[in-house]
Structure formats: structure tokens, C-alpha cells
């Protein structure tokens, strides 16, 4: 029966199965803290701390652009300018902060993880780890995924902070809305659940991006070309599943 199932159905199913299996193994390796402790710190620095500048830059620009664009779209003169703040702040907190960070990390972190693990696979470094008696999944994948889950919310907070700050600053300097009115408007419509939702979202994004990239990298086949393929696939798949997760979370939680 399986033989007659077309490949375009079978391949994704097989991939999903192997992905789940990998996650299952990784989950089982979590208690072996000693295996990945050192790597965890390193990955947290590489995924989290070192991504801060680029994430903050992108967030600052998207916050500024959102402010300018919102004030451009609100042409009716009687609308209080504070509305700009009431639109920019939730946009940043609910969507932009996490998604901008997500896309940047999908490119920056996702591609790097896949390339690293892919190279280790094709040069037998993963085999070498295994041959020593080390749990390669615990050693390589757990710290990356955990670092993603822990550091992504940190990056999200930084993105929101800088994005809202950038929006305020550009709004004020560009003469669109004074900072005071911006803040008042934002406060008027502020929901404490929004930042919580953003953090949940960024946790999920962090997991999605790192686990998919680890999966693509860990099962790389076919030399340098395979590494290239895995890298591209990791970045693309991370973005696609990030958007999917975004939608699912919005439907479930909002």
C-alpha cells in the first residue's frame, strides 16, 4: 500500500517522522546536562548575545517605519495623534517584534546551525562524537535548541524595546507625534496579555527555528553540495514554519 503512495505525500510524512524521532532523542538527552553544559553557554552567546545588534537594528527600523507609515495613513486631521502610539506599540509587541527577530534568526542562526551540523556530518565529525561514546544529539542539538528557546525571548524583548523606542523617536523628531502623546495613546489601549503573548510566540519561534535547522543539518547527505542544500532548506523551512506557527498561535491564543 505504501509503495503506491506518491512521493510528495510520503516524503513529508517521512521527514515529519524523522523530525519527531530526533526531537524525542533530544528530549531524552536533556537530563545529561554534563554533555552539553559548556556548549549551551556557547550557543547562548552565539544565538542570543551575538544576534542582538542585527536584531535591534532591524527592530529599530521596523518600529520607525511603522510609525511613519501609520501617521501617513491616518490622514483625517481630527484623529488624536496618540492613536499612532496605540497602533505602533501593539504591532511591535504582538507581531513585528517576534516576527522580525524570527526572520533574522532564521537567516542568521538557522543557516549557521544547518551549515555547522551539515559540515560535521559530511566530515564524519558526528560519527567521531558517536564513536567516542558521546550522545551526539545531546551534545549538538540540545544546547542549540535550548539556547534558541531561552535566548529568543531575550531578543524579542530587545527588539520590542528598540522598535518602540525607534518609533517614538522618529515620530517625535519627524514631527508626526510627540513622545508624550504617543505614550498616552499606547497606554490607553495597552493590554498586559500582549507582551505575554509575544514572549510565548518568541519561545515557539526559537524552538521552531533551531529544531528545524538542527534537523536539516544533522541529517545532511552528500558532501559540500549537501551542506549547501541543507543550509538553504533550513533557512526556508524555518521561515515557512515560523509563519505557520505565527498563524496557529494567533488563532489559538488571540
Amino acid at each position, binding site marked *: 500500500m505504501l509503495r503506491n503512495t506518491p512521493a510528495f505525500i510520503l516524503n513529508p510524512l517521512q521527514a515529519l517522522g524523522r523530525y519527531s524521532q530526533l526531537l524525542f532523542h533530544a528530549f531524552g538527552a536533556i537530563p545529561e546536562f554534563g554533555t552539553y553544559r559548556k556548549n549551551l*553557554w*556557547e550557543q*547562548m*552567546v552565539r544565538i*542570543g*548575545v551575538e544576534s*542582538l545588534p542585527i536584531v535591534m537594528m532591524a527592530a529599530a527600523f521596523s518600529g520607525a517605519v511603522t510609525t511613519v507609515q501609520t501617521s501617513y495613513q491616518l490622514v*483625517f486631521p*481630527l*484623529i*488624536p495623534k496618540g492613536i499612532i502610539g496605540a497602533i505602533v*506599540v501593539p504591532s511591535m509587541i504582538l507581531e513585528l517584534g517576534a516576527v522580525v527577530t524570527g526572520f533574522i534568526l532564521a537567516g542568521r542562526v538557522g543557516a549557521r546551525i544547518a551549515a555547522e551540523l551539515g559540515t560535521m556530518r559530511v566530515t564524519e565529525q558526528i560519527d567521531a562524537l558517536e564513536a567516542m561514546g558521546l550522545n551526539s544529539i545531546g551534545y549538538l542539538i540540545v544546547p542549540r535548541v535550548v539556547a534558541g528557546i*531561552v*535566548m529568543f*525571548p*531575550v531578543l524579542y*524583548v*530587545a527588539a*520590542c*524595546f528598540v522598535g*518602540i523606542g525607534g518609533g517614538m523617536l522618529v515620530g517625535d523628531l519627524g514631527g508626526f507625534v510627540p513622545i508624550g502623546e504617543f*505614550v498616552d495613546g*499606547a*497606554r*490607553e*489601549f*495597552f*493590554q*498586559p*496579555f500582549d*507582551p505575554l503573548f509575544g*514572549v510565548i510566540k518568541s519561545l515557539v519561534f526559537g524552538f521552531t527555528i533551531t529544531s528545524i535547522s538542527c534537523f536539516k543539518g544533522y541529517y545532511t547527505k552528500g558532501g559540500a553540495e549537501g551542506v549547501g542544500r541543507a543550509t538553504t532548506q533550513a533557512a526556508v523551512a524555518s521561515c515557512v514554519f515560523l509563519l505557520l506557527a505565527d498563524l496557529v498561535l494567533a488563532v489559538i491564543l488571540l
Partner: protein
Amino acid sequence: MKYSNEIKVGVTIILATVVFILGVRYFEDLPLFNSTYGLTAEFDNAGGLIAGNIVRVNGVAVGSVNAVYISEESGKVIVDFHVDKNIPVTEGSEAVVAGFDALGVVRLELKLGDPNVPRIPEGGLVSGLNPGDLIGQMTERAPEMMDGADRVLGQLEGVLAEANTMLASPESDFRQTLRAVQGSVDEVETLLSEERERISDILGNVDRLTADLDTAAGEDGEAVTALMDRLNTMMTTLDADLESYSATNEQLQEILRKLNDGDGTLGMLINDPSMYHRLDSTLTGINALVADFQNNPEKYLKEMKLVDLF
């Protein structure tokens, strides 16, 4: 050197946590470092109040609403909220839901009690005021008010037009004309003094309702919109009438001046300047009010949050 990764990560995470907490408190409009304390209030109707709405005392934001839910026992609306620790929410303080639900700008307004009595303890109950359905009342009465104002103004205009016509006919007997003028002016006078009370009543009503509007926004957004439309129409009418008024008024003054200067025997009007003054002051009063309304609509509209409507 060996711990540098750990330190980098730790510092980053701690910074992010601090920024997150302070940021949320900042936009919740809570004091960044002061602690708060929780209180509860009970209402018949939440009027659209939701978690996250601001709590204000005398127009100053001092906290926010944690949760709004229906009590299982009483079926009443329970509102949990917190305010800055420094705010003396004493016994006798009252809470009222204020703002426009239709615009999503609802908040909890606290009226503080006597500062000399003890505070309501943490988690204690602040009595909730349930506003009457003032909007509804006002909406019902609006057409009536408008009709009244219209009628008065229409009559005034008619009278003045009559006076005008009489003056325009040079053949008519002067005395007769004067008598007619006098009669007309009498008529105007009575009419005005009669209607003036009604006008001031109406204006008083508008005034009170305007003041109430701020606190009494009910959940019926459509009624509010309808009311605003009517107020708008009234403004336009007043505006139109005002122009003919000031024209007529000038003519009237012209007549009176002529009478005054031209013939000393025409004592009636001269001997009774108070009538003229009353007429004049009444007209100026309306004039000023309407002009004010026209020039500074925000003054009235701000009260009613009309601006937010657009």
C-alpha cells in the same frame, strides 16, 4: 575568561527581564518602581470595562484593571484592580466606570473618600457607583429641546421681519408705525422674557448633560452617535439664525436710533430704555453663546469627547 560566556548570557538575560518588567509596567501606566495594592469593586454593569483599562483618580492614571468577571453568587460584575500604594483609597471611596465604550476608551474612575478615615485594606471592596441611563434620557429629550429652540428663534425672526417691513414703507402713518413697532417690540419683549427662561432651561439642560456625559457614557453607542448628529444639526440651525439675527438686530438698533434722534415726542421708547436694553442684552447673550459655540466648539465638544468620535 573562563566564565565570560556565562557572564555575557547572564547579563543579557537579566537585562532583558528588567526591560520586560519595566516596559510592561510603563505601558500599564504603573509607577516603575513603586509597588501597588489590589482592590475590588462591584457593579451592575461593567459598561465594557476590561482587564488592562486604566484606573484614574481626578484624571490621573494611578493603576489598572486586573480582571472583570461576573460573580457566581450575586451575578454582579466584580472588577479587580490595583492602584499605586501612595493613593489613599480610604473608606467611603467610590468607583465608577467612565469613558466611551463605543470608542473602546473605558476606564475606572475612583472618587477618593475622606482622607482622614482609614484606608480600605488590601483586596478590600470599593463601592461601585452605577450611573443612571443619562444618555438615554438625553437622547429622548434632544428633539424636544431642538424644537423649542427652533420655535423661539423662528418666532423672533418673524417678529423682526415684520418690524423691518413696517419701517420699509414710507407712506405709512408714523405714529401708527411706531405703535406697531412698539407693539412688535412689546411682543418681542414678552416673547423673549417668556422664552428666555426656556432657553436658559434648555441651555442649562445641555450644560448638565454635557457634564454628565463624561462620566455617564453608557454602552449604547448608537444613541450617542444619534445625539451627536442632532447636536450638530442644532448648531447649524443656530448658526444660520444667528446671521439673520445680527442683521435684523442692526436694523432694529437703527430704527431705535432714528426714533431716538428724530423725534422727542416719541417718548415711549425713549422712556423705556430698559426694554431696549433687555432686548439687546438678550440678543447679545444668544449671540455670544452661539458665537462662542461656533468659535470654540472644542470647549463643548471636549467635554463630551466629541472629538474622539471622528
